[in-house]
């Protein structure tokens, strides 16, 4: 029988080496798979790991891609630390985008600088409200939040579809399911890099991701609510003994993660699309779950994890375009990468033991 037993003193060397080993193992297994399937292994791996980092504009695309993942994952980290399994960030993301868009479209001619901050607030409130449904169901009726949040994601996807085809549709869009463009005051503009100028799609929204991560770390480790989340997630009985309310914590983390996902949705549309369409997310809300766990539920680790996952996503796209590798194969490769990263993270803290039942003698 195989058993995982906690290491008493996790080696600091191991935690440094573990991602290196994981990536090396991914390279070896990946090269094998690409070779067996008849692709040039070296070229394939280049598309995955080097190409997304090969040019400054590609790096900026990487950062843009990572931005929503990081913001959503920062919220999810709080949920998962509290043992609340919000897997419906996708729906909260969509609601944020939808509410901010619907709000912006009420003021087509405004040039007010207040529009963007208002949209941020509306988006966060909408994302939080969507998560609040799950919070209410869980705290009042003990409904499983995994099911409620997941199912509400599908409701959200249908809701934005209805709104874009119905009440919010642009009459001038030749029947396409699109809203009018937001007023300029509701758009997030591209961000120039001093001395370089505009780089790819790099926009001011990405700053939010890099500012929010340290704030989230501070919330988690330097405030009483963050402490409550960690205690209740790690030892609920000790939380009750301290006098913390698990109901309030449940509501708090769900509202917080909903607001973060809503914010990410608003930024994504205002910076990259400029109008609402039936699909605004491309699975960011689900991918962010992986980011949160890859970061080992540490808000600062979310930045690195978000960039890594974004790289795997972009690398997969590159490989499909450049070498015609099917999507399932790039998906498989991403899966292998995650497997080794998570296995490495686990084995840092646990060791494998083969136990055999001792015969009594």
């Amino acid at each position, binding site marked *: 029988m195989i058993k995982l037993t906690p290491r008493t003193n996790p080696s600091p060397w191991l935690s440094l080496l573990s991602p290196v080993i994981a990536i090396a193992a991914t390279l070896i297994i990946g090269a094998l798979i690409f070779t067996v399937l008849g692709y040039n292994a070296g070229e394939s791996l280049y598309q995955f790991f080097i190409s997304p980092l090969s040019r400054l504009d590609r790096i900026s695309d990487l950062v843009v891609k990572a931005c929503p993942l990081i913001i959503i994952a920062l919220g999810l980290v709080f949920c998962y630390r509290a043992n609340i399994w919000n897997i419906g960030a996708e729906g909260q993301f969509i609601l944020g985008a939808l509410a901010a868009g619907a709000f912006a479209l009420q003021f087509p001619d405004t040039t007010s600088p207040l529009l963007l901050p208002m949209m941020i607030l509306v988006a966060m409130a909408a994302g939080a409200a969507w998560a609040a449904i799950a919070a209410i169901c869980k705290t009042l009726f003990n409904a499983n939040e995994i099911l409620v949040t997941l199912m509400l994601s599908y409701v959200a996807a249908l809701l934005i579809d209805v709104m874009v085809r119905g009440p919010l549709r642009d009459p001038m869009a030749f029947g396409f399911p699109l809203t009018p463009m937001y007023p300029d005051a509701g758009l997030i503009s591209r961000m120039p890099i001093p001395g370089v100028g505009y780089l790819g799609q790099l926009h001011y929204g990405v700053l939010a991701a890099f500012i929010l991560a340290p704030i989230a770390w501070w919330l988690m480790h330097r405030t*009483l609510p963050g*402490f409550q989340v960690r*205690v209740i997630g790690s030892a609920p*009985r000790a939380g009750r003994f*301290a*006098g913390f309310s698990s109901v309030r914590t449940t509501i708090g983390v769900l509202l917080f993660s909903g607001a973060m996902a809503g914010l990410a949705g608003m930024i994504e549309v205002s910076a990259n699309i400029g109008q609402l369409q039936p699909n605004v997310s491309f699975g960011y809300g689900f991918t962010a779950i992986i980011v949160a766990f890859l970061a080992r539920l540490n808000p600062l680790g979310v930045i690195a994890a978000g960039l890594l996952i974004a790289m795997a996503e972009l690398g997969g796209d590159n490989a499909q375009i450049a070498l015609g590798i099917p999507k399932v194969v790039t998906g498989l490769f991403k899966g292998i990468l995650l497997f080794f990263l998570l296995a490495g993270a686990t084995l840092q803290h646990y060791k494998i033991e083969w136990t055999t039942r001792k*015969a*009594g*003698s």
Partner: protein
Amino acid sequence: MAQTKTDKSPLLEAHGITKSFGDFIANDAVNFAIEKGAIHALLGENGAGKSTFVKMLYGVLSPDQGQFIWDGQAVSITSPKAARAMGIAMVFQHFSLFPALSVAENIALALDDAPSLNDLSGRIREASSRWGLAIDPDRPVGDLSVGEQQRVEILRCLLQDPKLLIMDEPTSVLTPQESERLFDVLRLLAKEGCAVLYISHKLDEVMALTSKATILRGGKNVGEVTPAKSSTRAMAEMMVGKEVDWIERQTSGAKTKAPVVFAVSDLSRPADSAFATALNAISFDVHEGEILGIAGISGNGQDELTEALTGEWLCPRSDQIRFQDQAIGRFTPQARRRLAIEMVPEERNGHAAVTEMTLVENTFLTHFDRVTGEGWLNTMRGHPALCEDTTASIIKDHDVRTPHHNPMARQLSGGNLQKFIMGRSLITAPRLMIVAQPTWGVDVGAATMIRRNLLALAAQGCGIILISQDLEEIFSLSTRIAVLNAGHLSPPQAAIDLTAEDVGLLMGGAQSSSSLQHPASEGERA
């Protein structure tokens, strides 16, 4: 061992069975023998090593040393399946039944070679009428009472034609009437030749049911008695040990003249689940500088009472708990701490302390209210680092041995973690302290230190409620003693008037009126 008797040859013998978990020796060279067709009791307090012993017998654990002899042959019992194949069956204290499935389906799941459901239903009906265990094989288990569920577990064992049936504290979930019926079944079984190993701490039952009793204390076999020729008093004495340390016994009288600091009146609490204990009209008070010992075998309402006292469970009415003339029955643990009430629950890991957090964080767990500043914003900005100095003082004052200056709670040994948890409370200079099993699983040195700390705290005028099943501890520390049994609390009596046997009898559920002639005037509420 006695092998000379003609028809009473031992069915099972154990020679020098030893089992330890880390430094803790759960079974220390236990010798044991049970005869064919006998009802044999295994008697002992909680933690005496009964469960460890039968788990080895049933193949759940394997002994470090020693030998089992089954029907004259040396055997090693490697798994429950192997035990069942030999003819050993066991009914656990906590059932493992699926509520949504029928009786027959549940039994089919447990059998190593299950026949078709129809055949099985027939066999169940047959067995249930033969043994007087009325049960309908087609009913879903979720609809059955706890007593009926136990019958399912017993039937499941009987269908395997066992030669030895192990029953682990079977009456802990039964009403007295159900217990009587169970005893009839067991007597019938024994008559048919199946030996029954009956594990219990209830003396009356052992007296009524069993022909022999082996008594375990501290992992050792301390003797074998024939209940018919012995008395509950004698067995209680063996169970709890004669040599109770009387040296530090408190003199009563003086302390009860001090003002009452804490009072519980008419506190009842329904059982949350089938395995919880309901609290029944509990009333007591604690005087300043007094240690009130609440004895009793765990599972008799200790957890439920502790939760009510700490505020993890809130009383229906606020005046059911009073502290210095303030009704606090509906105060949260945090609000109670603010009044200088401190509590140390029994379970260290995950209740009194978060194992995966550092000691500084664990200090903050109960100190956050006192280290954060005034006002909402300051409270929100409170974080564990504010407790660094306090933690250092606790570690220093209470001789907490740590691998480095701020380890995780799980890195400490049980004794050191308990010293830390006690110190965390003591450093706040409490006016009332509630401690549950403070020396449970703690090494002797730490236990002595913790007890000395409690006596010193009482000497400073703090009222202490000591909930413990360690009679030696209760007697050496308490001013007055009450016994919690099946959710009832006996009236507290001056410790000086009580003997270990008196308390042992109350713990075993004997009637207090017949066994105790001492007047209870001192302990009753004024």
